[in-house]
């Protein structure tokens, strides 16, 4: 699903070059739920931005769903992002002036779905996260957990193959965090690949695989919960 080979990312100024990622390689299989951990400044966010086609990389190769994205222009990247990737952010990033219906409508508009199709998808997505009755509410009228569920609904409405989550429970209390995590696990169980950045070791343990990034490189990758070799084999078989 996501394959990075020797990806490097250098932020260069006149005085200094900062290597955010160096020889970064990762292979995420379809249907996996991978968590990414690491200390602040280790390169997690840079990895997520590159994975989400929001930033270019300096060197290496990145295949998303089998497609090399290196030479794609902005339009092609945007279309690919819109069709295959769903984003979930720590701070929800709902558009405050739009009600829930219109927030979920945003990616569908850019996808070019018909009005009827969009409506059906939005209603289904809201139903999925249990917020059908709140379609006309503004984000500010919801709790943090509800807002994150709307963000998940927005990410799911276009039926992406790949969800990128950047500390989705970071701003939530433990109860809401657990609910959101359960929802993500449910989505993953239905076949959506998820890569989630988190600082929470408990959440990392709940994922199928956790990779740790230190100094822009994958320093550790282990399969959690159950016997890692068995999962590794199972994932290899499904790939």
């Amino acid at each position, binding site marked *: 699903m996501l394959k990075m080979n020797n990806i490097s990312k250098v932020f260069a100024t006149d005085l200094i070059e900062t290597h955010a990622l160096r020889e970064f390689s990762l292979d995420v299989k379809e249907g996996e739920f991978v968590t990414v951990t690491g200390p602040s400044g280790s390169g997690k*966010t840079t990895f997520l*931005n590159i994975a*989400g086609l*929001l*930033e270019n990389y300096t060197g290496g190769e990145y295949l998303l769903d089998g497609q090399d994205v290196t030479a794609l222009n*902005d*339009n092609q*990247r*945007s*279309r690919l*992002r*819109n*069709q295959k990737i769903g*984003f979930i*952010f*720590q*701070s*929800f*990033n*709902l*558009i405050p*002036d*739009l009600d829930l219906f219109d927030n979920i409508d*945003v*990616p569908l*508009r*850019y*996808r070019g779905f018909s009005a009827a199709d969009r409506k059906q998808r939005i209603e289904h997505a809201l139903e999925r996260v249990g917020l059908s009755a709140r379609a006309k509410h503004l984000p500010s009228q919801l709790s943090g957990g509800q807002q994150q569920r709307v963000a998940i609904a*927005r990410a799911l409405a*276009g039926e992406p193959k790949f969800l990128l989550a*950047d500390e989705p429970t970071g701003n939530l209390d433990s109860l809401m965090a657990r609910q959101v995590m359960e929802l993500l696990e449910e989505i993953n169980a239905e076949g959506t690949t998820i890569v989630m950045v988190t600082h929470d070791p408990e959440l990392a343990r709940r994922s199928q695989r956790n990779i740790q990034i230190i100094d822009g490189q994958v320093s550790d990758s282990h399969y959690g919960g159950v016997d890692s070799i068995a999962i590794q084999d199972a994932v290899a078989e499904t790939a």
Partner: protein
Amino acid sequence: MFNYYIKMGLKNIRQTPVLSSLIVFAIALGIGTSMTMISYYQAMAYNPAGAKSDQLFSVQLAAYGDDMETWGDMPDGLPRQMTNIDSSNLRLAANSFPQSPLYRVAPVIESRRKDIAPSLDFEGLMVDRDFFSMFDVEFEYGGAWDASIDLDPAKQVVISSSLNDWIFGGGNNVGKSFVMADGVKEFTVVGISKDWNPQPVYYDLTGGAFSQEGPGLFLPFALAKDLDMFPQGNMSGWRNANVRGFADVLKSEYVWQLYWIELKTADEVAAYKDFLAQYAQEQQKLGRFANPNPRGGLKTVQQWLEYNEVISEDNRVMVGLSLLFLLVCLVNTVGLLMAKFLRKMNESGVRRALGANKGQIFNQYLVEVGLLGVLGGFMGLLLSIAGLWGVRILYRTDIAQLDLSLVLAAIGLSIFSALLTGIFPAYRVCNANPSVFLKAQ
């Protein structure tokens, strides 16, 4: 997507009412000022003679003595006006071209309706019969006086529709008479013209380029001596004259009349120029036109408007300044739009993450700017209306009216200007790295 952009644009405008209002006001101020000046300039630059502009000629003669090289500061050294001696000679010269001398009078007119005091408000033009066809004066009833009246004057008159209303209360009053000029002379109405007031008043610019009211009545030029009525407007002379009454003015070398002729072909123009040259030479031989260069001049309506500086250099400068002011307003608008759009950087980042490309973000903001431009255009239009109202008060004329072209120009210019100012802010927003704005909200 365009409808979606409009929906989002309107929502964003409502969400930032103060900033949006400031932007709209900045655009409106620039548009209102420039449109007022441009429409005033256009009104002044208008040539009301239309197709006849190249066929109607103002006639000038170098009627001055040998102590002057040129007449005043006129570029060709010719006086704008003409002596009565010359206009009387020209109108009786043997040629068949339509022509007419012209000067203005302000007679006291008595209404035939009860309880209305005599009025001095209706200006009269002393003209020959040809004037009506030359200047396309249309009639509601009757017509011009007979050609014989130009040679053998009678107390006949053509009155305007407005004067007809004032004297008689309207209707066809051809054949009826009214009292004018010191309450002793009775004039018979032979024609009732539609109100005629071309702007600028190119047929006689000596009293200013614009006039609130057109002439109320037209009198046979041949009646000048009998009427014994001093002209309104300028009267200039190159030497002192012993003027004790109007009869002396008629015989003097003072210039105070205008003279128009209609020449339809280049041959006619050339022939009349020759005639004027011969006439000037002839007059010199008779002891007049003693200057070193006795000559005549012909000017088309357009040349006449330019010669009389209907559009002054000041007006051009004012238009330039108003456009500069518009530019200043637009520069301020760029700043305000930057402030407005930078607040939306996070939203743009989210939209980019959700699949919008740079072009879609750019278009969305440009549509919002376009909407601000439309609002600015309508507000600018209101300011233009106020500005034109001010111009009408200041110049006491109803030139520079609001018309469809002004409405479309104001809104069009406003949208164009707004889009122009929106390009840079929208470009900045759409090119910002979205990941920078996604981390925190």
